[in-house]
């Protein structure tokens, strides 16, 4: 069973993600901001990270950079999930080392499809 770390400062978005992911057989870890996310990522073996960008304490792009600096997370898929799809932000995410981008509001089916692709055939 793969473990997915969701990082978002909105509890309802986290709940929604957890609901969708858990129902599809993923184990879900939740963090409310980048700092918590980083801590959880270091404490557990995470297979994929889903992170929002605009959060307190540490935003998504910074989290991505921080994760990529860890040996364990050089290749783990990190998907940014955000309402903002401005090219600048995408560029920043890409440069920080994110694997890809997903726009909110997300379609649960699309999310799962994206996860399947990103995690390879599990």
């Amino acid at each position: 069973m793969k473990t997915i770390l969701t990082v978002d400062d909105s509890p309802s978005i986290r709940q929604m993600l957890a609901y969708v992911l858990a129902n599809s057989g993923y184990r879900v870890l939740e963090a409310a901001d980048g700092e918590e996310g980083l801590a959880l990522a270091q404490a557990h073996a995470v297979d994929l990270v889903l992170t929002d960008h605009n959060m307190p304490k540490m935003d998504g792009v910074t989290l991505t950079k921080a994760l990529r600096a860890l040996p364990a997370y050089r290749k783990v898929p990190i998907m940014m999930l955000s309402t903002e799809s401005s090219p600048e932000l995408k560029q920043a995410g890409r440069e920080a080392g994110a694997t890809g981008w997903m726009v909110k509001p997300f379609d649960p089916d699309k999310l799962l499809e994206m996860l399947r692709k990103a995690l390879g055939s599990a």
Partner: protein
Amino acid sequence: MALDLSRFAKAFFEEAQEHLYALESLLIAVDINAPDDEALNAIFRAVHSVKGGAAAFGHTALTAFTHEFESILDRVRKRKLVLTKRLVDLCLTASDIMRRHLAALEQERAPDLAELAGMQEALIDIADNADRPIAHATPAPTTSAHVTLTPINSASTDASRTGAMSPATSLQVAMRLMKTDYADTAAINNLLADIRGLGEVASHDCEAISATQWELRFSLNADIAEDELRESLEFLAPADSIYITSPSNAAPFTALPSVIDARDTEDENAYEFFAPLEDETGNEPDVDINTFLHKDLSADIATNIEKDFIAYEAYANAPVNDIALASLADASSIRVNVAKVDQLINLVGELVIAEAMLVQSAADINEADKARLAYGLSQLERNTRELQEAVLAIRMLPISFVFSRLPRMTRDLADRLSKEVELEMVGEDTELDKSVIEKIADPLTHLVRNALDHGIETPDERQRHGKPRVGLLSVRAAYHSGGIMITVADDGAGLNRERIVRKANELGLAVTDQWRDDEIWPLIFTPGFSTAESVSDISGRGVGMDVVWQNVHSLGGTVDIASNPGTGTTITIRLPLTLAILDGMSISVCGETYILPLAHIAQSMQPEAHDLKTVNSQEVVKLRDEYLPITSLQQLFNLSSVQPAMESENSEAKAISDLLVILDIDGKRAALRVDALLGQHQVVLKSIEANYRRVKGLSGATIMGDGRVAFILDAAYIVGVAHTVDIELNAKPYG
């Protein structure tokens, strides 16, 4: 698979309201002259969070609105837009509108879209016309993201803007311009000048969307059809770089992002991968992410990360508005259904009664067994008490829940009345029972409105009296001798004695000028008593102060007024901490057991004969240097004086009329004649009103250890009756 996500919609509404509440607090607290980054960031993020949720749950109008609102706040936090009082006022109104919109959505009513659209326009308008910091000298086109263009308010377009009528058509245009073609600001401004030849450019914006391209967006009001416009623009830029939409709502640019983005993403999917993923056999593809990542592992990136860490740590630890923080960072609390908590409290109450019954029975057992039993029972008693306290604590909430509405209300009201007021709130984390908070909220609000309306004078008048122009309104809460004390104090004009006496006489009350201040002030609690010259809609419809009195009294509390003409007024509310448990003293009168609240008992005494006197047919007793009126329950409740006090083993009962309990209600004292004092204990309060009806003189009932019911006496009522103030007068506020 069709998963039902609607259950999360409710959580979104709650969250959104919290964000809006935080937004309001932040807006009120922010210092316009020197706004700090953390506050501006927090303001931005509050709106951003609402947008995220709105988008996630498909509330399109709200999403569009918050997108616009957020962009403006983004500019403010990046210091590209100056925060003025007008902008803050507008933002506050915007947050009100959002709150209403959310409430409508939550209750599945149709939200007021016109209101939303109107506010959106107002926000955009103020943002575009507001002062901007001057542009940097020569923006290098390839690095600066934002281009400062000719302000709209240039002379050529001014005339057309003033008194502008709604144009024939309003079109939103976005143009992708190559930086190679438009190397600097001047070039783009020239382009805009050309465009102005086609019509009125109502708003515009220009940003670098990539290393090689600008995106110029503007709104054109012109009597021109879309394809005509396109033809004209094609002289200025390649056809496939021009996107034109006519707005479906009044807000420009909201339709645009989706138009642009749909064309922009390589595939039309909801997601994209920056680089090809590893294929399924696990082999590394030719162009792999690692080439990106190796770049990131250099030392200076590491220091950048550290800098970001530090910056964010500073942000996290910065003292942002406390209220906002409390409402947003609620990780250490959970929401509990109130009914569950009430049930818990009931159960604990029953447990306490059962324990009391056991104690009673234990009194009859023999010595040896008795010791063991006594030990077990004392354990039980301790555990029960701790459980009780813990459960009651669940219901306790900080009074900040009530205080929180005051800053905004004060600000708005002071503005409306053209008064300058500083609101001081102390003791916001003082905790009270939830139901107490709910009942005290409106009275407190009313007292504050009163102070603003009638208490504090206009700045000019204050100045004439040698006072500072800014009035001070102080609201404080603190624990005080087993209860809570809440004061509302203003340094205003104070209560007007003559007016009150006159009004009381008008209402038919026999009040004279001879009365002391502390007898005159409580008159304002009489129903129908408003001395306001004209009834403003703010307060003073005469239904305010007596409701305050009722609410406080129904909570088992008291209200006191102190006032000095010219100096100000202080209103003090005292409330019990919890409603369910009472420390009581059992007394016996005519064979019946009653309970007196321990908090209001000053002492008990057996007076010497020479201390008892009769003055004006009122019996009094001398205590130290004071004469206190004496009353008895026989007198109050019309009890038949039955036989002398019943025999009991450990009876200290003397002859009737010799034992007095001195009651004290905030300094006002009276003596109550009792037959015997039976003991002190904690008593579970049961409501008579809920089970029968309200009875004057009683504040509740309880079940004693022997299973019988005992009434809990209302000490304030007894003291009031005992005093020389006319009983009729006293009766009115009690309703």
